[in-house]
């Protein structure tokens, strides 16, 4: 199938950038990234600069691919990362607009690659559990209620790709932070540091320049892992509780 691609090209963070149009010959079995590989091979053959885009596992679990396809992070397919989006969902002759994630906290490095280290700094601020890892504990030595384990697991499905920020009209990172706070705080090992975690991660999130959540739920709609905004309500609760009861600095 012949496709027309309008791709955001930007040489460097300081470059102004702009769209360039390309023609590519793809087939329906390719993933979206493989289709871009085909384009890049063609560009290399023509001695042009290939399109920079991020990818790693290409099986929808690493959270590395980050592009906005026709106005939607990870493209039109629900609950699917860009690498798992297949060209069979497109028709011959279609035009596809590909842009990087847009957020002040995610500056463009080059073309479709953005710097998402703000997320790493949020994790550093509190997205961890301070226990010594030793030998694997005995099974069932720490009872966890099934319902809570399921909620924690659903939140832990977050791959930290940043699609929530890209989708949010306010570029808010609340879904990401709430998923991490939920996944750790719902389990007994993480409960111990729940207050400090909520305060520190929110403080870091605010410092990074993300917008404020206004409950649009675009994040959940575009999340490739379908993380629910119920987690945002849980983060709000955790934050209020921590601010009021904890001795930690707000």
């Amino acid at each position, binding site marked *: 199938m012949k496709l027309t691609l309008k791709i955001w090209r930007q040489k460097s963070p300081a470059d102004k950038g702009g769209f360039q149009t390309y023609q590519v010959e793809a087939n329906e079995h390719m993933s979206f990234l493989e289709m871009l590989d085909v384009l890049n091979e063609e560009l290399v053959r023509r001695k042009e600069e290939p399109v920079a885009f991020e990818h790693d596992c290409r099986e929808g679990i690493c959270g590395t691919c980050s592009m906005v396809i026709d106005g939607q992070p990870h493209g039109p397919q629900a609950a699917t990362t860009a690498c798992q989006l297949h060209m069979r969902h497109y028709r011959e002759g279609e035009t596809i607009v590909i842009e990087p994630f847009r957020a002040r906290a995610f500056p463009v*490095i080059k073309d479709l690659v953005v710097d998402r280290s703000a997320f790493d700094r949020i994790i550093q601020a509190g997205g961890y559990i301070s226990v010594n890892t030793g030998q694997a504990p005995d099974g069932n030595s720490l009872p966890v209620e099934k319902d809570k384990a399921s909620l924690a697991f659903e939140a832990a499905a977050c791959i930290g790709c940043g699609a929530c920020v890209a989708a949010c009209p306010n570029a*808010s990172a609340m879904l990401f932070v709430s998923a991490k706070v939920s996944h750790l705080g719902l389990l007994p090992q993480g409960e111990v540091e729940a207050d400090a975690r909520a305060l520190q991660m929110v403080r*870091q999130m605010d410092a990074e320049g993300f917008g404020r959540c206004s409950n649009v739920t675009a994040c959940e709609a575009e999340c490739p892992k379908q993380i629910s905004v119920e987690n945002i309500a849980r983060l709000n609760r955790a934050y209020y509780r921590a601010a009021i009861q904890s001795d930690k600095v707000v």
Partner: protein
Amino acid sequence: MVNNLLLQAPIKLSTMSWFSRFLTSSIGQKLVMSLTGLFLILFLIVHLAGNLQLLYQDGGAAFNLYARFMTTNPLIKTTSYLLYFFILLHTWQGLLLWRMNRSARGRQDYAVKRTKAVGTSAVLSTRMGWLGIVIFVFLVIHLYQFWLQMKLGVLPQVDVPGSDEPVDDLYTAVYNVYKNPAFVLFYVMAMVVVGLHLWHGFASAFQTLGLNHRKYTPAIRFVGRAYAILVPLLFAIIPIYFYFFL
């Protein structure tokens, strides 16, 4: 930019008290919007209960007595100062959040914009700022037309049964405004905007409070939508009734 991957962004803790820091954090700012919004939602019910007395066929006696009660009762007066403060706080905080959220996208916006939402439409939730500004302009005109006239004491007085002394005739002032088709249209349109603002605002306020649960969120959504339709509708019926039937 890539090299700072493992460097913690320096955070300067302000010298504000913990409470100020809490209220100015991203979640704290939303809490302010939520609580002031819920207060205004409650106020709408009280306001509506008063307004519906305009529909009594008693030449405005009940409404005029109610208007005097609302302007003289010390408890109501105290609450009204809270109300003014919360209206201004909700507006000011909303404008701050609006500006902050617009800048959070960065210098370049998307060429193709498509904002989806879960179980609702993003059309309203992404336009709360605009809807809010329209409501604020409406409020200024509305307060000038009725509230200020009452406060200035420039309204003619009438005798009403149930009061020994004459009371300000707010009813006639309302009657005159509602006989003007331009104002009737203006009031009805403003109520549509209030309804749209509430459509998102009601349920959103509860989500911000952290009240989201499979057990009761469907009920909050239902009540919120019923409220967003019924309350503005009942408000809007009054000028329509005055214009066409009185």
